[in-house]
């Protein structure tokens, strides 16, 4: 097989409600292997979509672009009923680079190496090859050009057969752009059998390096291969308005969307269970410690306020002056300990943790870090969902315990303030009807709600994000959905067990 890509009567269209936007029609093209190709065309023509198809980065929650005909990449068919994915043969450098900003540049490269089964020790060499012999410690300290270099080093870590780059020189001055272009060509040359496709508008930077120019002709809806000297002419640069071709009706489109969303929820839940055994142990431990310690004081204070106020007011508003105070305490103690404080602890925990968790995941999605993980061959669920699940399942019960104990202590204080009952009398009365069984039920409630909140945060955070507003939306949803789940679990289990 000497072809990298084969297009046979290939068509590509974006699905829209009530119509379609056709990007390519009837493309017949063969792209030879080992070539270094520059991919040009007017903006919005479909270059990024094609790149995502090749990289296997299509959003599973949205209707995928409709493909017709055949597209065969390295012998594998990407169209038709049984599509295969290219897996480790493809690496992509996306816009925004998608560097994992919680790790150092070197750790980014090490992660890619480990994911493709190579030694982490190769990282410094790869970085040096990319022109970064001694990279800074933090990704945030990288300049634009340095970011690109790290992205290149990381992409090369898996020794891909197909290297895809989306605007690698965007935002760089001509000299830096030239340097990056040269780097890419050198890397291409080192590895026999690599095909490199670079989407760019910056033909000048790549002109001395390209073997050919792939042109996406928007008006003609075609894809063709031109010699390296090719340049887009003026009128070709202008995109004609596309007709909305007859596509599927809006109702079908929206139904498809909804079913895809539901399937995605199912997928997240399945992932959460299948991927429970921790792979990234460090992440799991770090997240668990953080989720346990950070909200502990907050929840304890909230529990104390609730327990103390409830007890104080119950005793103060006793209609039978001075009488049956112990009975009041027993009632208050049971409802506070077994029902109210655990539920409210769950609320406060969710409010404190869910927002942060889904914001982090949402931002990683927005900046292509999640795509980068997939490209590296790391399942985002292993890296993000599993630690979240473990952390919440362990932290939520522990933090709830803090809340319940704080509420009891505050109730003891309130009792001594509002009546003459001794501490022993308070303890006897308050916990009279609270048993080990209740403690088990509290544990079950908080564990289950912790798990569900974790799944909700991950699912909402990792959905498609087109803007910062989308990230904010998902944070809001995570808090609301999380609290609704806590409420449902607590109320439901309380009803089932005690009613």
């Amino acid at each position, binding site marked *: 097989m000497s072809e990298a890509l084969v297009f046979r009567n290939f068509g590509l269209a974006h699905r829209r409600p009530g119509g379609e936007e056709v990007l390519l029609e009837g493309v017949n093209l063969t792209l030879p292997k080992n070539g270094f190709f520059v991919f040009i065309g007017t903006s919005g023509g479909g270059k990024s979509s094609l790149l995502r198809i090749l990289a296997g980065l299509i959003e599973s929650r949205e209707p995928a672009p409709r493909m017709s005909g055949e597209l065969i990449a390295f012998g594998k068919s990407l169209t038709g009923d049984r599509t295969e994915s290219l897996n480790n043969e493809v690496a992509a450098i996306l816009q925004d680079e998608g560097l994992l900003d919680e790790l150092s540049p070197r750790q980014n490269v090490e992660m890619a190496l480990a994911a493709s089964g190579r030694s982490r020790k190769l990282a410094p060499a790869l970085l040096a090859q990319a022109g970064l012999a001694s990279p800074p410690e933090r990704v945030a300290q990288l300049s634009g050009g340095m970011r690109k270099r790290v992205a290149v080093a990381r992409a090369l870590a898996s020794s891909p057969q197909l290297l895809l780059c989306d605007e690698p020189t965007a935002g760089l001055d001509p000299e830096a752009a030239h340097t990056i272009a040269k780097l890419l060509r050198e890397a291409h040359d080192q590895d026999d059998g690599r095909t490199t496709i670079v989407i760019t508008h910056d033909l000048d930077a790549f002109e001395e390096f390209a073997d050919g120019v792939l042109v996406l002709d928007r008006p003609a809806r075609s894809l063709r291969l031109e010699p390296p000297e090719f340049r887009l002419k003026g009128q070709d640069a202008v995109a004609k308005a596309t007709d909305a071709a007859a596509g599927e009706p809006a109702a079908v489109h929206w139904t498809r969307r909804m079913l895809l969303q539901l399937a995605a929820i199912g997928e997240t839940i399945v992932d959460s269970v299948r991927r429970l055994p921790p792979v990234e142990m460090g992440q799991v431990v770090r997240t668990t410690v953080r989720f346990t310690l*950070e909200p502990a*004081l907050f929840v304890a204070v909230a529990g104390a306020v609730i327990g103390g106020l409830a007890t104080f007011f119950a005793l103060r508003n006793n209609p039978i*002056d001075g*009488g049956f105070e112990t009975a009041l305490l027993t009632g208050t103690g049971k409802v506070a300990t077994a029902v109210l404080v655990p539920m409210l602890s769950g609320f406060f925990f969710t409010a404190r943790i869910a927002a942060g968790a889904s914001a982090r995941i949402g931002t990683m999605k927005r900046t292509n870090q999640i795509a980068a993980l997939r490209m590296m061959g790391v399942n985002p669920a292993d890296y993000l969902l599993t630690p979240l699940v473990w952390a919440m399942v362990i932290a939520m019960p522990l933090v709830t315990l*803090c809340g319940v*104990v704080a509420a009891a202590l505050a109730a003891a204080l309130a009792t001594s303030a509002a009546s*003459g009952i001794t501490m022993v009398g308070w303890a*006897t009365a308050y916990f009279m009807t609270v048993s080990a069984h209740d403690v088990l039920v509290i544990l079950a409630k908080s564990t289950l709600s912790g798990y569900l909140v974790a799944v909700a945060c991950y699912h909402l955070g990792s959905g498609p994000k087109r803007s910062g507003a989308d990230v904010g939306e998902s944070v809001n949803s995570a808090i609301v959905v999380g609290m609704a789940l806590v409420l449902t679990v607590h109320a439901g289990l309380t009803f089932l067990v005690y009613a």
Partner: protein
Amino acid sequence: MHRLRYFIGLLTLVGAIIAAIWIVRLLRSLDDRAGVPLSVEFRNARGLRAGTDVRYRGVTVGTVRSVAISGDGNKAVAQLLLAPIGAEHACVNSSFWVVTPRFGGLTGGATGLDTLVRDSYIAFYTPPGSESELSPGSLIAGRERPPLNAEPEALDDVEHGDLLMTLLVPENYELKPGSSVIFRGVPTGDVRSVSLAPSGTHVEVQLRIQREHRQTVTDKAKFWVGRPSVSGALLSGFTVTDLSALLTPYISYYGAPGEGVLVQDGYRAAAELSRPAFEISPVPGKAVQQDNTGKPAAPDDVVLVRITYAAVERDTFSADDQILRHGSGVLFLDRSGRSVVVTARSLVDASFTEDDAWGDPEIADEVTKVHRADGTVMRAHRVWVDPTGQDLAALVLEDVPPDLLGTPSDRLVFGGTVAGVPLQIRAAGPDGAELPIQPMASDLDLSEANLGGCVAADGKVFGVIGRKVGDVVAAIVPLEYLPADLRPQ
């Protein structure tokens, strides 16, 4: 930054674990605490519950840990844990009993409306001189009733108006709290407490004389302790001068009528060493001429009383409001013989006048008292208010003294018109005595001097001063709104 938060969180977590352990130990290891566990058996636990107090002389000295039916189902066993201070006083001959809920305010108006029901608790009493303490784990038989020589709290409460005085006696004579105080052979009070004077030279006995009899105690009255005394030889028969003293000693006193001045609370007197020789004054002649019940001559005039009303309006969002009102009312006997006071409803019903922004006001702890000119104070409760919204209400007096007389029925007019006759206002002053009669003024107000006062024409009362319907200005509310069964014959 993160490290600080983690540290605080760690502290909280550790603190919670420690607190949880403390609570569990508090609940479980009560056995290890310094304290004396005891078991007390009762035939009837009377609503005793775990967690309530064990009290000695009114002070909480222990806790009831559990109450359960004993194995054979005959008895209820309470497990107590006495604190060291309580254990000191729990001796082998101590009596334990359950103090049960008391309902007050229904008969005799003793405890008042604020404390209706209390948790049952266990009290114990140790007779003086007991030495050997109970050992931990002892099983004791509890009593079903407080012992006769129990603390004063098992006695009737002192009522408002009772006379409290101290009698000094050379020795106790086995007087106990609850022993009677007797005047002319009639019990007029009881002993509240008996204690050795700090100097050790005498015994101080606190007495309570019930308020309806307090005028019998004057500074010239002599007190003595009634004890069994047997005189005469066994063979020739013996005279027991104080029969009742065969059972328990009591205190008796006597003062000749008309001598001495009435005493105030806190009066101290020394008892005679023995019953003084005196002649009980004979029955006064004029008493014979009166009717059998001994009531003084019926008044021919309107009987006015002073009314004091106190209540609390409970507010959900702010502090409770205290309500205090003063005014007057007309006293008479209805056809069933009840002592009825007619007055303005706005005087004795806070729910009629108070407005809550949230709806009906919540009025609690209502206490209405009626003061007569002779100084007696009686409690009253509201039995009727006018359903059509007129400012009229009727009270019925509780614990009416036997000499109470009301306005004669021919002085009260129910219905009919009054025209062309000058009207007069008659009301009672702060001390219960009637204020000078005022002519009816056009600019009548609802001050204390007027509210509830009666309006009379030609010496006959036909209305009461209250609010105009739906307004806050003064108006005459005619007596004809009073229902027939509350009117006199």
